[in-house]
């Protein structure tokens, strides 16, 4: 996916030039839509382990305070972190608050506010290696795990670490797990994340000396100058009246480095238990978690149950047009099948969700082309699977012997009547097992729409898992739900097949 991003960013950025004043629209709507990735883990914005439906984190508190100061309501928008900038350019949200470091590459496509947090890079190693690895220099030649796209990557590169030794993960918890498991010798993270994830883990040790300080800032669209000025004014007030200092203290993020940004510490505030980050395996609130997973599984079921029938019938239509339609339309449909099957579903989801609204804005019809994320998810899954189903139907339609067409023609049935009454009722029975098979694979492919923030089974399980330090147990729980859905699909499929098979096909030799 990172390979498509430069293209998407360029496309969206080119189209975003048409965006009008964000502040006026935000005020008119009375809502500040702020973007973040809730599966990014603590302490930014993440599902509360004690109640997975609630999203908490220091950035949630900053966002709410910011909205209050702007005189509007805060509304959270979630999507995959790597897609957040595209989401903002596609006007899915007004600004981003999610650990965005100020980098020259990003400054070319977005605008940054003044910083709200200062961090440094900190190495984490296995406890038994604490004497051996005391700095980046002592790790020469060892693989180091980092979060994909984070400032740690740039940090290692500028320190001269060979690219093949920088192992990037899409998940903020994975670098720590990989260190514990010994697949890498160390991981590099922002210091407070290192403290949060590794501080309480006896298997890991923090390397004391931090380096390469950086800052987080709120991201707005380029050209949203009025909004950016208001955000900066509000942040300045938060820094000086102690609000920001208090939030950082609550989340155990306060250190003296914050003063360098002009942030006042404010009244001494105790750290809340959610910010400690202790592994809490013994105390997982299973009933709440199961309830969350059940609802997420229902979302997965809805995605599948709505998109598969559409895909099945659209696929049949495509196959019929490809085989029997007028040549130009048949060519177009064939091209659609080739392109759709030949490109990743993920790219299609991204294009439809982020680039379609940008295209709409460019064409002057943004409302028409800006679809809800569940709708985009269903349309993408249905459109993608329709191409696969078309091939299944095509094979089945072609398997109907030509003598059936002759017999129908001799009786005076038109082409369409022959298709409707003779060919499709038979080909349907042939294609059914393959369609059921695809239904099964769609149940699992539906997790890809979590990239645009749809809270389906896998995304919810991962979010809860990271927040409660129980990713493996949550993945097993999610797998159990997937298995249940898949078995249910198989059971329904078998019933359908049995009904269809009640009529035995005629084993007729083709002579001539």
């Amino acid at each position, binding site marked *: 996916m990172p390979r498509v991003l430069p293209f998407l960013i360029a496309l969206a950025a080119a189209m975003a030039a048409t965006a009008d004043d964000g502040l006026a629209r935000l005020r008119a709507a009375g809502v500040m839509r702020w973007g973040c990735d809730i599966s990014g883990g603590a302490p930014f914005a993440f599902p509360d382990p004690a109640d997975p439906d609630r999203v908490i984190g220091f950035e949630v508190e900053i966002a709410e305070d910011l909205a209050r100061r702007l005189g509007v309501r805060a509304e959270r928008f979630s999507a995959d972190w790597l897609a957040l900038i595209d989401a903002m350019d596609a006007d899915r949200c007004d600004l981003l608050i999610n650990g965005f470091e100020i980098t020259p590459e990003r400054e070319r496509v977005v605008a940054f506010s003044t910083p709200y947090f200062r961090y440094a890079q900190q190495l984490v190693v296995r406890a038994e290696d604490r004497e051996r690895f005391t700095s980046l220099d002592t790790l020469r030649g060892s693989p180091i795990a980092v979060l994909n796209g984070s400032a740690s990557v740039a940090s290692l590169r500028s320190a001269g670490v060979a690219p093949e030794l920088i192992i990037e993960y899409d998940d903020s918890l994975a670098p720590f797990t990989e260190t514990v498991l010994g697949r890498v010798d160390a991981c590099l993270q922002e210091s407070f994340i290192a403290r949060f994830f590794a501080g309480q883990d006896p298997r890991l040790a923090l390397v004391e000396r931090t380096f390469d300080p950086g800052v987080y800032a709120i991201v707005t669209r380029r050209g949203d100058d009025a909004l950016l000025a208001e955000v900066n004014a509000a942040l300045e007030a938060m820094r000086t009246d102690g609000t920001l200092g208090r939030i950082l203290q609550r989340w155990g993020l306060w250190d003296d480095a914050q003063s360098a940004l002009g942030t006042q510490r404010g009244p001494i505030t105790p750290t809340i238990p959610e910010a400690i980050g202790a592994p809490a395996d013994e105390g997982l609130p299973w009933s709440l978690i199961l309830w969350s997973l059940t609802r997420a599984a229902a979302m997965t079921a809805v995605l599948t149950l709505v998109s598969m029938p559409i895909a099945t019938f659209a696929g049949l239509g495509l196959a019929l047009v490809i085989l029997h339609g007028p040549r130009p339309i048949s060519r177009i449909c064939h091209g659609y099948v080739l392109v759709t099957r030949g490109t990743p579903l993920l790219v299609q989801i991204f294009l439809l969700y982020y680039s379609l609204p940008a295209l709409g804005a460019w064409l002057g019809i943004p409302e028409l082309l800006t679809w809800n994320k569940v709708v985009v998810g269903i349309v993408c899954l249905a459109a993608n699977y329709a191409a696969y189903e078309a091939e299944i139907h095509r094979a089945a339609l072609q398997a109907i*012997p030509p*003598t*059936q067409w*002759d*017999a*129908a*023609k*001799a*009786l*005076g*049935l*038109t082409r369409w*009547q022959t298709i409707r*009454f*003779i060919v499709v*009722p*038979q080909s349907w*029975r042939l294609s059914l097992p393959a369609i059921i098979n695809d239904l099964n694979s769609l149940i699992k492919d539906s997790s890809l729409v979590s990239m645009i923030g749809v809270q389906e089974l896998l995304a919810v399980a991962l979010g809860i898992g990271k927040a409660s330090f129980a990713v493996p147990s949550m993945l097993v729980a999610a797998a159990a739900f997937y298995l249940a859905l898949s078995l249910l699909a198989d059971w329904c499929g078998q019933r359908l097949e049995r009904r269809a098979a009640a*009529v*035995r*096909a*005629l*084993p*007729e*030799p*083709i*002579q001539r």
Partner: protein
Amino acid sequence: MSTPALEAIGIRKHWPRAGQVLDGCSVRVQPRTVHALIGASGSGKSTLLRCLALLEAPDEGTILVEGTTAVDGALQRIDDRIRRSVGMVFQEPSLFPHLTARGNVELAPRRVLRVPPDEARSRASAALDRVHALHLTDRHPGDLSGGERQRVAIARALAMQPTVLLCDEPTSALDPMLTREVTSVLRDLALDAGTTMVVATHDMDFVTATADSVDFLHAGRIRVSGPADLLGRPGTDPELDRFLRRP
């Protein structure tokens, strides 16, 4: 002389692979008669029947159904309304396997002739009765024997009440026992005074018993044409004698 039920004039047809299959064939079928097409395998009988059934457009020639032009060489489009007045029974029954015997028989009357469901049902029953297959009404083709299937296929064609019924070697895919069962049904139909039939067949007993007129095809041309008793006279045509294994 009355208007022929079916008439073909100068039919030429070539297949890309097989070359010239019909080389100027003319056929004339009088109403309420049985017309036999005989000839060795590969002589063009099936292709001629497919042209007569309006399933294939000939390269050249004209086909008239009850005096109305259905096809002529220049006009490749075949009128569906005329096609449905010509019934066809194939070598293989080609029943629709997902429908019952009744479903097979009543489909075309309902969908093509738009006959109301009740009438289509009684038409189907009557047609099945004519081929002694009324007891098979609710069975699917997969549960029928080869002979039973072929009888249902004949009923399916009859239910459309065609002007002419064409039969393309309807027993060639059957063993002798089943052949007898289908032949006896066809013989009953042929002897029924109202039926106009064209039968392509190898079965000379059937021809002598039922046919009023006969065409002998050899290498895409009609070599002998005339009343059925022509076959009884040796020396009419050397190819015919060879075909009938006469010295």
